[in-house]
Each structure stands twice: as structure tokens, then as C-alpha cells.
């Protein structure tokens, strides 16, 4: 906007003023982007957030304490016990290597910074770059004033902040930056037909591949762009140069990432890019022929060859997929089209909250007034419909759908919302903030309407900033490791049970103790407690997760056998009944049951956990299976006693009485955190005398009945 106000100024100082203003704006943008992401550090502390970041952090620590090659070949024997994880070959190393490089750089220039602080500040630092890349991108789409608006939006839009606050050391922190840089270079490349820009696109595409699994989005969007342009009859040699350069270099480069490997030529997700690569060769060849033969003949040639190619291509794809040369679509891909697919076939994907469909208010919450400028922007681009506009339109249509299906993909939609909204707004301001002198006479009604329109939009902008700040502060700055709360007299307090428990594990258990917990907490246990886990958030082995689910939902003796077989020493459960923390294990229990039912349908049945009236109950009306399950016993052990016999579960809103909770015989409570959020149980040793631990428990609890019963002849199996 500021640039526009100075449009009227003439003279030699104009470029200087413009540069100064641009620099000031960019500095302000960086400042806004970074400072708004620091709420989490200010309100809480400099800490790694949530779940996945803990793994990234741990991997980064490994990287800076070992060589890069050791990192690449890292076999992690402290997760997925006893399978272990070929971590070096199953992660996207872009994030870790970048922060490792930053760490080394700072050390080289005499600023040894703790790796944790680099990791915490990583996302805010890169958000500034994202804003700049969005500026460049939008500048190619419209002009620099739209670019500045888009950059400013991008800097503070909550949809992006949600994954990039300080401490949110996740792949997305760098991936969105790379996404925008790649798109920016792509637009430049296809506009100019520049091999240099196409090569840069490929380079950043490679960086993106190394950083986030969402790279597949680029892999499909760029071919889609080309494909649409070809269908629109807009093929030209610029497109050919840009696309082939990008595809050749980008694909070869992406195959260098161990985790990706041969996927680009074997997986269906990548087939579109390969197909378009083939298509563009044919189109180029067709174009060449077109210039050589008369047009009537060419039409026949074209129709016939198109049909043949299409038939051969589709048949080939089917055969190769059928014969197993091309990997079929992944489950996450199917769930993009059929929202019920995951729920039926792959409960583990559906169990992740970020794979759930988005609630509509979330769009407004995450982007405020940009969401209704977004369609207008797309429409405006439609009116003009240059080649690069097709890209933005394709991007926005695809992503709007995906974001509606999977809340996590809101993140990829946010940039295009910013771009389209910025286009709308700058178009609006182009007209309504244009007070230039060409109109001689002063028209008061026109002036008034301009003032009203631009005034109200400036007010909206103010509201947007206000909303963004508020959302960032309230919703997106919580580390989720530490929970904010208020004391009874209203003062803010922190609930620090997770760290209390993890610290307890770290200080009180053997260094090679194995801790079983639901996979959500795997990364945190690995990162904070530094103990071996059975399953973690890298959900690569459904069966192994199902084993833990089975143990949690089975009766004690069965769970004990399962855990013993896996050398487990401790079991950790999250229980929110005292505090009212709804994300606890009892609420996740149905997923555990569903996932293990998928593997052992004869042993675990979801139906058995519901009462006859189809209710999910935990009080005295809970089913026998429910009350016998390990998780139930572990969650509610001694809970009624805490409230003198009748405990009110604050999450489920049901009353648990002492008679509902049967005693634990095979497990021993060793730790319960201050607010009962985390409870840790140790597996008892096997009884040296060879008795069932349940019998031991009975014997310890009641000697008298044991004495009476035993005076009769026991019914024993024949001894062999």
C-alpha cells in the first residue's frame, strides 16, 4: 500500500524512497512474523512443543553429536523395541541438517548456541523467509503491491503460525518456506522459460523432498499446471524447457533421499509427473509435426495418436500396478478422496486428530477475513487467466478440497489464501485508493465511497492483525507439554505433569528400561525421558502398535504375557479424570481397541466395550470387558479412594466407585504425577514360587479364605 501512496511523487528521490520503504516494510514483516511467534516462549518457556518435534529434536541432537554419515546410517535401537528403526533411512533429513548447519555456522563465527535454542527458534526464523517468498510469488502473479500484502498476510496468518511458533520444531516449519520458494521459482521458470529458474525450482524441490512428505503436493501440482495449460492449448517451448528441466533434475535429486529412493518411478503418487513428462514430449513432437504437415492431415494424425497413447498409457499403468511394479496408492491418499476409507480400513490413520476433516469455523479461525477474499481473488485471476494464474487457480481448487478433508492440509491452503486475498485487496486498493490527479473536478460522492470502502477494508486489516495476535496468543502458543490452567483463585498456573513424569523416568529407572505407552507419547518418552519405547509417533508398523493396543485392552494376565514377551519394564498411561484433561488414554481407548481388533478380531471386540445400550461407560455400568481391561484398571486404580470412595471422572462425567475398580496384581504403581495426569506402573517380577501373580495377590489379600479352600482336595490337572 505504502508503495502506492508514493506513486504520485516524482523526482530523483523516488527510487530511494521506494527502496527505503520496501526495506522498512520487509523489516517490519520479518519483525511481525518472528515476534508474533515468540508468544510461546514468553508465556511458557523455550521448550520443544508437542510430539513430532521431540523426535526431530532428538535426531538433531544425534546429528550434531555424530557425523553426517553416522546420522544417515543411524540405526535407532531405542524405539520400536525390539524391531528398532532404521532412522536414517526413514526420516526426512532436511530439517535436522538445516538446523545442524546453522548450529555449525554459529560455532564457526564464535557463537556457540545450544542446539535446543536453535531448534526452538527455527520456525520463526524461517517464517520471515516464507513471507519474502510469498511476496516474490505474488509479485509474479500480480504486482509488488499485491506481493507486499501477501507477504504481510503470510507473516501473521494464524493458519501458518499454528505450525510454526517458537518451539514447533516440525518438518512443516521449513517445508512451507520451501514450498513457497519452489512455487516462486516455478512461476518464474514457466513465465520466462528459463532453465536457470527451472533448475532452481528443482533444487528447492529437492530441498523440499528432503524436508517433508508433503512434497508429493508439488510433484502433482506442477504437472497438473502443465497439463491444464496443454489442454487449454497454451503449450509453448517455455513450458517445455521449464518442465523437462524441473522434472529431470528434480526427480533424480529426490531419489537421493534414502526414504524416497525409487518411489518417484514406482509409486502411483508420482505417476502424474512422469505421465506429464511423457505427454509434453509428445506434444512437443506433435507441434514439430504440425509445423511440417498440412493442418487437415495433422488433425487425423493427432486424434489417432492421442487415442493410441492414452490407451497404451492407461493399460500400462494398470498392468504395472497389477503386477506390482508400481506401488498402489497409499492409504493416506485414499482417505483424501473417500473420507470414510481410513475409518474402515486403516484406523491408525483415522486415529490421528490432524487427519480428521476440518470443521468449517476453523477456516475463519485460521485465516479470518482472508477466507472470504480468497474466492474473490480466484475469480479475479480467472478474469485475467494468464499461465501463472492457472497455477494459482489449480492450487486453490485442489487445496480447498484437501483442507476440507484433512485438517492438517489447512497448512498448504493458507499460502494460496494469502495470495488470492492479497490479489483481491490490492485490486480493490488499486481502484479505491487511487487519489491521483487525473480526475480534474472533485466528486464528493466518489470520494466518499472511496473513503468508506478503503476505510472499512483498512479497518478489516486492523481486525485481522488483532485476530491473528489473539489466536496466536490463545490457541497456538501452548507447547502441549505444559498445560496452562488457573488456580482456584483465578491466577494462571502451569500443569507440568508430563515433564514431572518423564523426569521421574529419566532419574529413577534403568537406562535401558523399556517403557510401553500408547504411541502418541513415544517421541516424548524418547526425547524427554530418554528411555526405550515400544511404539512411537512414526507409525510405520501397524502390528506393533496393535500389540500395545491389545495389551491395553486385554485382561491383566494377558497383557502381562504380552509385555513380558517384549521385555517391557514400565507401562505409562495418561489419565485426565482428576484434572479434566480430555485427551487422555481412556478417550483414545477406542482407537486402541479398533486397531488391535483389526489384527486380532477374535480376541478383541469393540462391541464388548460398549454397554448393551451402546454407551461408552466407565462407571459401575461399564461392561465386564471394560472393567477387566488393563487400561481401565491402571487409569482408575485408587481413583475412588482419592475422593473417599466415589470419584467423579471430570472428563467422562461419570462416578467411579471403589467396587468398580478391581485390584492390579501383575503391575505395581510406581509413580503418579501431581495431577494424576501421568501414571507409571512397573511390571512385577514373576513369582519365584511359580504362582500366578493373580493368585499371589489373592493370597496376600486374604489368607483366611486361602486356608479354608486349601483343606479340601484341590482339583488339579493330571501331572505328566
Amino acid at each position, binding site marked *: 500500500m505504502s508503495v502506492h501512496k508514493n506513486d504520485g511523487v516524482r523526482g530523483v528521490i523516488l527510487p530511494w524512497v521506494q527502496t527505503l520503504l520496501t526495506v522498512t516494510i520487509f523489516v517490519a514483516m520479518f519483525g511481525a512474523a518472528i515476534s508474533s511467534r515468540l508468544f510461546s516462549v514468553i508465556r511458557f518457556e523455550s521448550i520443544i512443543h508437542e510430539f513430532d518435534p521431540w523426535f526431530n529434536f532428538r535426531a538433531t541432537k544425534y546429528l550434531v553429536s555424530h557425523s553426517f*554419515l553416522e546420522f*544417515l*546410517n543411524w*540405526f535407532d*535401537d531405542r524405539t520400536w*523395541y*525390539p*524391531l*528398532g528403526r*532404521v532412522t536414517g*533411512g526413514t526420516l526426512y533429513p532436511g530439517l535436522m541438517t538445516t538446523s545442524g548447519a546453522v548450529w555449525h555456522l554459529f560455532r564457526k563465527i564464535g557463537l556457540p548456541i545450544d542446539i535446543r535454542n536453535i531448534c526452538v527458534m527455527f520456525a520463526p526464523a524461517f517464517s520471515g523467509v516464507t513471507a519474502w517468498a510469498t511476496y516474490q510469488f505474488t509479485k509474479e502473479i500480480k504486482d509488488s503491491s499485491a506481493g507486499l500484502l501477501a507477504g504481510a498476510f503470510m507473516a501473521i496468518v494464524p493458519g501458518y503460525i499454528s505450525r510454526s511458533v517458537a518451539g514447533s520444531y516440525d518438518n512443516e516449519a521449513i517445508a512451507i518456506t520451501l514450498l513457497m520458494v519452489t512455487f516462486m521459482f516455478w512461476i518464474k521458470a514457466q513465465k520466462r522459460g528459463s532453465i536457470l529458474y527451472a533448475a532452481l525450482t528443482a533444487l528447492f524441490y529437492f530441498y523440499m523432498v528432503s524436508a517433508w512428505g508433503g512434497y508429493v503436493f508439488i510433484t502433482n501440482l506442477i504437472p497438473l499446471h502443465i497439463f491444464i495449460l496443454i489442454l487449454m492449448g497454451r503449450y509453448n*517451448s517455455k513450458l517445455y524447457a521449464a518442465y523437462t528441466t524441473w522434472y529431470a533434475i528434480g526427480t533424480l535429486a529426490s531419489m537421493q533421499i*534414502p526414504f524416497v529412493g525409487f518411489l518417484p518411478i514406482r509409486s502411483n503418487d508420482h505417476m502424474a509427473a512422469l505421465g506429464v513428462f511423457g505427454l509434453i514430449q509428445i506434444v512437443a513432437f506433435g*507441434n*514439430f509435426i*504440425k*509445423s511440417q504437415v498440412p493442418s487437415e492431415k495433422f488433425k487425423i494424425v493427432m486424434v489417432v495418436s492421442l487415442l493410441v497413447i492414452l490407451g497404451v498409457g492407461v493399460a500400462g499403468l494398470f498392468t504395472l500396478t497389477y503386477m506390482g511394479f508400481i506401488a498402489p496408492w497409499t492409504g493416506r491418499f485414499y482417505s483424501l478422496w473417500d473420507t470414510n476409507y481410513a475409518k474402515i480400513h486403516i484406523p491408525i490413520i483415522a486415529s490421528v486428530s490432524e487427519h480428521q476433516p476440518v470443521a468449517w469455523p476453523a477456516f475463519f479461525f485460521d485465516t479470518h477475513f482472508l477466507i472470504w477474499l480468497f474466492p474473490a481473488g480466484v475469480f479475479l485471476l480467472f478474469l485475467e487467466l494468464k499461465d501463472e494464474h492457472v497455477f494459482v487457480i489449480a492450487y486453490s481448487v485442489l487445496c480447498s478440497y484437501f483442507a476440507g478433508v484433512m485438517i492438517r492440509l489447512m497448512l498448504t491452503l493458507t499460502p494460496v489464501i494469502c495470495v488470492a486475498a492479497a490479489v483481491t485487496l490490492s485490486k480493490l486498493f488499486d481502484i479505491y485508493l487511487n487519489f491521483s490527479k487525473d480526475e480534474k473536478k472533485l466528486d464528493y460522492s466518489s470520494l466518499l465511497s472511496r473513503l468508506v470502502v478503503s476505510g472499512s477494508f483498512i479497518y478489516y486489516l486492523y481486525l485481522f492483525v488483532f485476530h491473528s495476535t489473539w489466536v496466536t496468543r490463545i490457541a497456538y502458543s501452548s507447547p502441549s507439554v505444559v498445560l496452562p490452567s488457573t488456580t482456584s483463585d483465578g491466577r494462571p498456573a502451569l500443569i507440568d505433569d508430563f515433564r514431572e513424569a518423564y523426569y521421574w523416568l529419566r532419574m529413577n529407572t534403568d537406562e*535401558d528400561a523399556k517403557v510401553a505407552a500408547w504411541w502418541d507419547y513415544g517421541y516424548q518418552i524418547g526425547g524427554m525421558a530418554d528411555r526405550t519405547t515400544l511404539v512411537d509417533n512414526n507409525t510405520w508398523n501397524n502390528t506393533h502398535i496393535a500389540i500395545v493396543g491389545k495389551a491395553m485392552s486385554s485382561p491383566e494376565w494377558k497383557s502381562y504375557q504380552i509385555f513380558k*514377551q*517384549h*521385555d517391557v519394564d514400565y507401562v505409562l498411561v495418561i489419565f485426565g479424570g482428576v484434572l479434566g484433561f480430555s485427551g487422555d488414554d481412556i478417550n483414545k481407548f477406542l482407537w486402541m481397541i479398533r486397531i488391535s481388533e483389526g489384527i486380532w478380531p477374535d480376541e478383541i471386540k469393540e462391541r464388548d466395550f460398549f454397554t448393551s445400550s451402546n454407551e461408552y461407560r466407565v462407571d459401575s455400568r461399564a461392561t465386564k470387558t471394560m472393567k477387566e481391561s488393563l487400561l481401565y484398571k491402571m487409569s482408575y486404580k485408587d481413583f475412588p479412594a482419592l475422593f473417599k470412595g466415589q470419584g467423579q471422572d471430570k472428563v467422562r462425567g461419570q462416578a467411579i466407585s471403589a467396587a468398580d475398580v478391581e485390584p492390579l496384581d501383575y503391575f505395581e504403581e510406581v509413580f503418579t504425577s501431581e495431577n494424576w495426569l501421568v501414571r507409571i506402573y512397573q511390571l512385577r517380577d*514373576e*513369582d*519365584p*514360587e*511359580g*504362582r500366578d501373580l493373580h493368585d499371589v495377590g489373592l*493370597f496376600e489379600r486374604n*489368607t483366611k479364605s*486361602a*486356608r479354608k479352600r*486349601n*483343606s479340601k*482336595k*484341590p482339583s*488339579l*490337572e*493330571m*501331572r*505328566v
Partner: protein
Amino acid sequence: MLRSFIVALLTFAALANARCVQGSRTLVIYDERLSVLDNYSNLFNSMRERDYTLDFISVANETSSLQLFKGENKIYDNLMVFPIKGKTLNKHVSGKSLLQFSLAGGNVLAVSSPESLSDPVRLFLNQLGIYPSPKDYRLVDHFQKSSDGIRIGTDGLKNRFVYKPYDEEEDFFITNSSVAILDNREQLVPILVAPRTSYASGKGKDLWVSGSQGYLVVGFQALNNARTAWVGSPEFLSNSNHQSNGILAKELTKWTFKEKGVIKTNGFRHSHIDGTSYEEAPYKIKDAVNYEVSFSEWNGEEWQPFEATDIQFELKMLDPYYRLNLIPSHRDETYQWYTTGDFRLPDHHGVFTFQVDYKRAGLSLVSVSDVKAIRHLAHDEYPRSWEITNARVYISGIFAVIFAWVLFVIFFVSTSKTTKNFNTEKKNN
């Protein structure tokens, strides 16, 4: 008399060099109304000869203080319980405390008789899976020639580690005995089984057991290696039957109080076959390694190499990937080393357990395990492309393309000036 006896014994004990691995402080609980100690002098004397410190406490004497523990520590290593009149041993010694004594590693030799089976002893034995016949049940066998007792040949002996008869013609003589039924837990070590034609019943009561499901002498070895033995009749150990049962009784006390059947390991080692340890070079898949473990046996006086042919090594990750019979390698004065020989680790990365779990009825339990990760091949440990003959086609393809491209560029650059018009035209298309 008894008191001076104990004093003498205690002084003796101070000089003694114990024969049992664990300790020789032994408490004998008896009831002077039922048992006369002199009847068992042969047994006790042989124990004394083997340097046991014997304390005798009669529960008939109310004032006698009977304590198994002082604080948390047990006062005695071994406990012998003779039949007691009445239901309880003593207010300090319950079934629970007997169990506690065993859980703390103490060895117990319990003797009961058809006349008396005190509640604590029964409760304790029941917890171990030994169910002696109740009061007034006796073992009878109408197929035996003599009516005063039952003779059992060596085929009644069930465990060679407890007692391996020298003479196959040996007979054991049983009179007035209870009999126990056992459950199927693996810690039980049956020692002497009742004849096939015998049965146990009381007066007008149901059958307790019949045939070889009944046991007269039973051993038990807990996972903590504490041992317990039960004998169904005090007469079995008495001087009057010394002729026939003396050796078995002696060997039984030896086994129960850990003079025999005790083995241990001094540890294990495993490494690459060239001797490089895991710490120097962690294992990767398909590495050749070997594993060794040592075994030693207590012969009553010292540790000596233990010989066996059935020791197995397991390499497992959830399931065993290898189960190898160990072969003896070298030995020294104390230990016999067993080795797997060289073997190749499985072609599967993961966290594996190297384990020897040697559990045989009658021998103390030895289990050693080591959890080690076996990593995958690193990026530079695969064969290089030119080493794979199949790949040479592709390699030559690559170089052919590179060569052709260079040629093309050379020709293109050198010939482009003359055909400039054609080139620009083509670009415009």
C-alpha cells in the same frame, strides 16, 4: 542336654567351613511330644560332619522364642520342620513367614506325618503346588508282600541330580507316610514317587490320590534358587530306616541345603570371530560372530567345571532366530566354557537377545542374557555397482548416453552457425 548341645555346636560352627554354597545356619523346629531327636541322630550327625550349625527349637516349650527374621534379614539359611502337634507352629511363624523365608532365599525341609500336618506348613506347601494328604490319610499298597511298610525300588526315583543310585537293586522303605499330589508347575522336582498300586485314603474318607500321581518325597526349586523339600513321613529319615533310606536322606539334605545340584556361570562373552568386541564394532546383519558361556558346579567343597551336553544358546527377537547346541571348548580349574562356534547373524536388523537359559529340574537355574542391536548395512556397505555383473549393462548405458550427449553438443555447437535459420524457426514452434 539340648542347650549344651547347641552351645557346643555354635562354637564348632565358628570354626566350620561350610559345605553348602549359601550358608549352614540351620534351624530345626520339632515337637518333643512327637519326635525324639535321638531317633534322627544319624541324619543330624552326618549333617554335623558336613559342618552344619544346627539350632533345635521345640515348639512344645512355650517360652522358646522362634524367629526366622531379624528385621529384614533372615537369621537362618536353612530350616527343617518336623511334625508338630496342634495347628500352629508358633505365633511368630505362620505360613506367610515360611513363604517369606523361602522368597528371601532360605531353604526349607518340611517333614509331615499322617498324624500331624500343621496349618502353616500346609499353607506354605500349597503355595508351592504341593498338596500333602490331610491328617489321617496314609499311603497303603495291598500288592506289597510285607504289611508293615512299602518298599520302593530305584524306579521310584525321579531326579538324578538329587540322588543317583549306585546300585540298581536299592530299595527304599516307607512306613506310615502321607502322600502329596502336585500341580504341573515346572519348579517342582519330584524325587520319590508312590508305587503304581498304592493309594492314600483315610478312615471312611475319600481317596486322596492313587497310583503314581502320588509323591512321597518332593523337591521344589524357586526362581530365586531357594529350595524346598517335603518328606511325607518322619520315619523315612529316622535311624530305624537308616539301612535302606539313609543315603537318600543324606542326599536329600545335601540337595535341599544346596550342597549339590548347584551350578553357576561366570558370565558370557560374544564377539566378532576375529575377536573384535561389540563395543569396538557394533554388529550388523550377517556378521560372523561367536558366543561363549562358562558353567561351574559346586561339588560340596569347591567349584569345578560343569559338564553337560544339553546347554543351548538362543538368539531371539520375539522369536528365536537361532537355537544352537553349545559345545564344550576350553576349561580351567573352575569353569567349563561352552561355545556356539562361529555362526552368522540373521539377515534381519533389530534388537536381539543373546541368551542362555539353562533350566533343568534338580539343578539351580542359570539364565544369562544380553540385549544387543544388530544394525542394517550402512550406505557404503553394499556391493558397488561395478561389482554386480548384472549392473554392467546399465553402467555402460549411462556412459554411452553421456558420450553421445557430449558428441551431440560438439556437433551442435560446431554446426549451429551454418544452420542458424533452421534453429530459430524450430524454437518458435
